[in-house]
């Protein structure tokens, strides 16, 4: 009995199975047929005066941080320039995956220039793909270009965002009641130390008795530890918190929950802390990417020398900006911040001016000397300025 029933069922299922397979086969063919022309259409569009630019991010595009800043830059650029098409891929790890992404963009999307935005993409991935594709231009965020060593079709750009951090420090100093500021940082590397020092120097230009307590989490993205650090800093009586991690979201949210002030980084986090958000040091990649796109469209390239290999700048050159001031920022603080900003714009303000000593009492800059923003000594910074509580070895 059971055998017969099985037989009957299986026959019905044969028909069903055949129908389903047939339907899937037909539609899959249709599907491929539909998708092919759209792909060729995009490639065909490349010839008609448009410029295809490829962007690669290491994390998600909506991380409220580093990657969001770049993605907003790319989106803003393509909005301003209708002829620029953005091809983008997010959450690409710093492994062979990024090599493959770049090759795919070159071979399948016909891009004119690539913007792999994560620091760790440079060596060996960009260098390798750039050598194999000498006609494609690579622009890397991080300022790692070395004359004579780096391939000719690789350029790099980076901004002096510590200028914005200096102003954020001024605002923080005007707002803080306890005189204690907090800084949650990823790793004790020069880029990060520079932001901590500039923030502290900005704050101490207002009140020389202020201190900045720094906590290194050890990783670019470690939300749990960032939240723990924010809580412990709040417990210590710190009332303005800022950070340098990939996504400041957790830090800003925790500060708001604890009822203290916060200052953002990378992108605008005002929506995360309606009450306590003071201002923030933001990248302004729209300007940079639009400039590059215009130059590329005009036929200038890194290879023919039309585009400089190393592009850097601060507030004046439009590489970074400040978030709009939050409701807690006093008129006095705003005036002080705007005054400092004006000085940055006319180039009269130098952050690192002697005499400076580090937080162990060792002199790092003699009286009467100063480091301009493009000074290489600043890019090898390994010290924390007087007024910072913490150590680079922790």
């Amino acid at each position, binding site marked *: 009995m059971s055998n017969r029933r099985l*037989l009957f069922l*299986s026959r019905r299922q*044969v028909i069903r199975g055949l129908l389903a397979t047939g339907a899937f086969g037909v539609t*899959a063919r249709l599907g491929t047929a539909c998708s092919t022309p759209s792909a060729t259409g995009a490639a065909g569009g490349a010839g008609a005066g448009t410029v295809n630019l490829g962007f690669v991010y290491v994390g998600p595009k909506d991380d409220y941080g580093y990657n969001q800043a770049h993605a907003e830059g790319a989106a803003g650029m393509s909005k301003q320039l209708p002829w620029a098409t953005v091809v983008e891929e997010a959450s690409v790890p710093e*492994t062979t995956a990024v090599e493959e992404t770049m090759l795919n963009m070159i071979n399948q*999307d016909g891009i004119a220039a690539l913007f792999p935005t994560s620091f760790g993409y440079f060596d*060996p991935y960009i260098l390798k793909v750039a050598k194999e594709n000498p006609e494609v231009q690579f622009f890397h965020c991080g300022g790692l270009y070395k004359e004579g060593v780096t391939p000719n079709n690789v350029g790099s750009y980076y901004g002096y965002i510590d200028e914005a951090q200096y102003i954020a420090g001024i605002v923080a100093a005007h707002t803080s009641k306890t005189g204690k500021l907090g800084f949650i940082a990823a*790793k004790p590397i020069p880029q990060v130390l520079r932001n901590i020092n500039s923030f502290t120097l900005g704050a101490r230009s207002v009140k020389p008795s202020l201190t900045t307590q720094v906590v290194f989490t050890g990783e670019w993205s470690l939300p749990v530890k960032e939240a723990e650090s924010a809580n412990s800093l709040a417990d210590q009586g710190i009332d303005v918190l800022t950070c340098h991690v990939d996504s400041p979201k957790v830090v800003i949210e925790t500060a708001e929950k604890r009822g203290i002030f916060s200052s953002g980084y990378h992108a605008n986090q005002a929506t995360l802390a309606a009450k306590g958000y003071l201002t923030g040091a933001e990248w302004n990649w729209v300007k940079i990417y639009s400039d590059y796109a215009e130059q590329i469209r005009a036929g200038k390239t890194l290879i023919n020398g039309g585009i400089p290999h190393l592009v850097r700048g601060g507030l004046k050159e439009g590489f970074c900006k400040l978030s709009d001031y939050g409701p807690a920022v006093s008129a006095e603080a705003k005036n002080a911040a705007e005054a400092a900003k004006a000085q940055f714009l006319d180039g009269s303000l130098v952050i690192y001016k002697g005499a400076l000593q580090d937080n162990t009492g060792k002199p790092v800059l003699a009286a009467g000397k100063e480091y301009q923003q493009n000074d290489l000594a600043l890019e090898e910074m390994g010290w924390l300025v007087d007024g910072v509580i913490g150590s680079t070895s922790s």
Partner: protein
Amino acid sequence: MISRRNWRATLEPVCIPVAALLVSLVLFGLFCALAGANPLAVYAAIYKAAFGSWFSFQNTLIRAAPLMLSSLCTALPALLGLVIIGNEGALVIGALASIIVGLPLVPVASPLVVLMAMALAGIVGGGLWIMAVGALRYYRAVNETISSLLMNYIAIALLNHLVGGPIRDPSSLNKPSSFPLPDAFLLGDIPGTRVHYGLIYGLIACAIAYFLMRHTTFGFAVRTVGGNIRAARIAGLPVGKLTLIICFLAGSCAGLAGMVEVAAVHGRVSASLNANYGYSSILVAFIARQNPLAAVLVSILLGGILASGGILQRSLQLPDATVLVFQGLVFLVVLYSESLYGRLAIFKPQPNKEKSDGNGSPRLVGSAAGNHGGNAAG
């Protein structure tokens, strides 16, 4: 192998994972439809990006290479009844060991010697790391899944500590990493391709593992312990020794994967080593049902899925996490399908066999369809 008597039993471990994959494809299609993309276009794009041309298939193979080796780290101990998920940690330790041994040898030895020494160091480093998990399990009865998972974090912390301090190249300012291996000492690509030699190592390791587990007395002993540890003890099998050996072998495969990452991809050790290959390879081992040969195929499949992540973003404007959703769906459905083994009547040995061949083949198709339907209903 496939005789008339046991074809049902042979088909079971083939049909169930394949059906599980199909079901997860359907679920993923639903997800894509909800996200506003045409599921058929998505399938077509995945196929094109993963297997469509030699150019894209190389992309798949590049991603599959580290998965094969490190999946053995889960697959081998599973035959002994241990669920070890310390692949990531063993990979990182293997990478660290290989660079620590390799760098001092660079000035005094030829590239071949350096690479051999690095591979050996990676194998021993990763092996000892997982052997510690096995020892904890056998001598102290510590749950091996938890301890191997936690040891991943220790390994990553150790990596961060070493590249941030003791083995740091002072010129790596903003991205702490070890001194680089000179170009001449790197493991090159397989001639004519973009794929590095890690793929060959993976294939060889999987083949050796298969032979060792299925066709040697050692493998038989391991599977006996995995089947019934008490019976194995009574039979006089050295359970402790087998546990340690199998854990060492498992860790050594992941350690070798770490060495390949250093010598073929990164050229140095830095935090980027920690790229979740270890976790993806757990998935590979489970889908392959701990069979080393199946792990090769599944690695290629998963490599294909990962390779297609890019095109989903670039031409279909799906979010970057889409490919992770797909991977998660596959994992869930496959785990669920594990519960179906031995429960589908169709795969059970039938008391009275068919005589005519005419009925045999439609039954086969029908059985696959029935199995598929059963999964979908669940």
